[in-house]
């Protein structure tokens, strides 16, 4: 098994469990958090964006002017495209914000968690 990429097919199709060079990928504790009201799981300490990507979430926010979807772009906290509403606070760079148990993560519409039609 060591020589195979092992995927947790249940819910983490996009995770690399064993890597040919890096070996087994060490992760923190499995924790629950909510994403747009749904309870989901990720690994403590990994960026929120990584947890979401593992669930196949592509859209982090919709822009203020043109309402166009955005997701991970630079993954290192520079471009600010991946921002979401985290624990009620908008514009949180999910690619560099570590996941903690019980976090509330919401898609951001403009600068709010309220979809545009309710704003």
């Amino acid at each position, binding site marked *: 098994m060591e020589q195979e990429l092992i995927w947790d097919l249940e819910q983490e199709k996009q995770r690399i469990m064993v890597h040919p060079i890096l070996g087994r990928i060490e992760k923190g504790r499995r924790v629950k958090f909510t994403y747009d009201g749904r309870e989901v799981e990720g690994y403590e300490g990994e960026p929120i964006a990584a947890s979401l990507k593992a669930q196949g979430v592509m859209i982090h926010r919709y822009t*203020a002017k043109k309402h166009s979807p955005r997701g991970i772009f630079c993954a290192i906290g520079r471009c600010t495209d991946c921002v979401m509403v985290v624990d009620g*606070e*908008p*514009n949180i760079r999910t690619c560099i914000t570590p996941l903690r148990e019980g976090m509330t993560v919401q898609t951001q519409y*403009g*600068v*709010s968690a309220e979809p545009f039609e309710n704003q």
Partner: protein
Amino acid sequence: MISYKADVIIIGGGIIGCATAYYLAKNNISVTVLEASDYIGNGGSSRNGGGVRQSGRDPRELPLVMYGIRNLWPHLSEEIGVDTEYHQDGNLRLGKNVHHREILQGLTDRANKVGLDVRMIDGDEVRKIIPYLSDEVTVASWCPTDGHANPLTTTLGYYKTARKLGARFYTGVKVMELRKVKGELRRVLTDDGSVFEADQIMVAAGYESRKLLGSVGIDVPMTRSLLEALVTEAEPHLFDQMLGTADADFYGHQTKHGSFVFGGSSGFEGFNKDNCTPMTSSITAPAICRGIMKYFPDLADAKIVRTWAGWSDKSADGVPVLGRVEEVPGLIVACAFTGHGFGIAPAIGDQMAKLIMSGTTDIDISALHYDRFKAKI
């Protein structure tokens, strides 16, 4: 090297110079604007907090800003083809204690004396206007006809439209000297050896005006201080008023974009160190933040994305120097705005253009004459 002739030369490409150029160009006067830096509106014009205030102003300059708010600001966006983001939703000057109340009462009395509607209101009334303000706010002066606008688009809008109407702008050209011809001011000499000629020359170069005016034997007592401001990320809309405090801890507003623009102070503005560029100091932005949070705790989580600093040209008595300099025929001066030149700029531009074209102004500006400064004994 250029040799160029125009009816009017304006030295200084800030909002005063751009606005004046616009009102002149609109009347088919040929005007050339010379800006020392590489950018239009690079001084206080682009760095201020955007207040379009009457309250708190000295009675000597108040009529000008009232004129602007009545006649110019309301339709300025259409006129200069940009969104100036002008809002006339009032100005609140906040206070928390008896001392503040005294300061605010003094300002209010002074405003009422010259016919400006400013009222003292209590904490509850304040929170009716902006519910997010701290319970510690117990008093405010309230001027409902004040407001704010976007200094960047307003300045560049004046520039853009003046340019389109034929005003010539040169940036990156530093005027070194004013020169008379047969007793009348006619020429400006620049650092690259160019000579510009005109019948009338307006100096609107902020603090730098002092040195220039010196070349024709005129002095305006002013100094400069480095003021700092900051802007946050865009946030949901909270309020439309202009804010300030009795203690001058901070001032600012929420922009149309959603970001909050706040200026403020550490208390050392007059003594800030610079390296010849308007560089922020490490102590001021945190002080501004603390100032804001004392009044507006809800903004604690707002993220600051940029801070900046800008020089203000402080006159000895806190109001600008404006108008013709009779002893140097052909010279007009508009400087020393002391940190509150933005809101008044359209009126200045309009009136200076009138002064240049007809020799008179609609508003009496005699109290702002350059020769008003006298020794105290």
